[in-house]
């Protein structure tokens, strides 16, 4: 059953999933020790900068992997679906960022760390990929 499911993926999708899993594993391995070390030791400014950049590298790798996937994907339908999903997620995220930004600027809302923006993007991608399923269900009913 798993083999059948795997065969549904295009080679580019399989490569992208593999890269993403490796990068998430790297993220999970790298982040806790860095946070722990920062909390329990006095770290110089330069080292802290290096630690922050190291923590963000796996996530940057995931964004690069998305770009690589789009360039590797030979199935035009899958490529178009992914582009559509990315466009919806990006516009929704930028909309959220701009609303939050003005609420921050006018001191109505507290300031938040910028890495929540990519988090919103990932959630928006998930929601936008659910939209066709919702419509399909409605059509089926």
């Amino acid at each position: 059953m798993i083999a059948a499911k795997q065969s549904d993926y295009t080679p580019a999708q399989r490569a992208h999933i593999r890269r993403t899993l490796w990068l998430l594993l790297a993220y999970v391995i790298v982040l806790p020790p860095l946070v722990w070390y920062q909390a329990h030791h006095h770290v110089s400014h330069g080292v802290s900068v290096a630690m922050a950049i190291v923590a963000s590298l796996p996530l940057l790798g995931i964004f690069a992997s998305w770009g690589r996937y789009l360039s590797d994907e030979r199935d035009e339908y899958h490529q178009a679906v992914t582009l559509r999903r990315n466009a919806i997620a990006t516009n929704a995220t930028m909309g959220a960022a701009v609303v939050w930004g003005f609420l921050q600027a006018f001191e109505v809302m507290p300031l938040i760390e910028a890495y929540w923006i990519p988090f919103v993007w990932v959630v928006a991608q998930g929601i936008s990929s659910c939209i066709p399923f919702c419509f399909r269900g409605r059509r089926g009913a």
Partner: protein
Amino acid sequence: MPWTPAAKRYNVRLILLTLLYGVFLTSAVYGFKHHLVGGAVAWVVATLPALPLIGVFAAMGRYLVEEQDEYVRMLLVRQMLWGMGFALSCATVWGFLEGFDLIRHIDGYWIVAAWYFGQGIGACVNRVTLGARVACS
């Protein structure tokens, strides 16, 4: 490269939304500076300048749907992907630098500025790699 009809419509929408943005932003800044708003109204007034910018994102989406020239559309999609990758990367690095207390917090709309800047990089990449230039955006 001549502008396509969809690009012309996009530019008209963009100009109108930019004008609206100027009006809303000026009004909101004036209102907050002179303490004219408070409570729930403050939330609404603070959100007002964001609405035309959200309209710009919607206009970009609409343009991508309306554009019939597949080559121009492909260039724009590439440009937007560069913008997306650049903005998300900036947000991630900045977020961790904030998380480790190295730099100050920034207002969220700077991510949108990074996105537009990233689109500029995408346009340069299109120019260098494909020798192409998009008329709008």
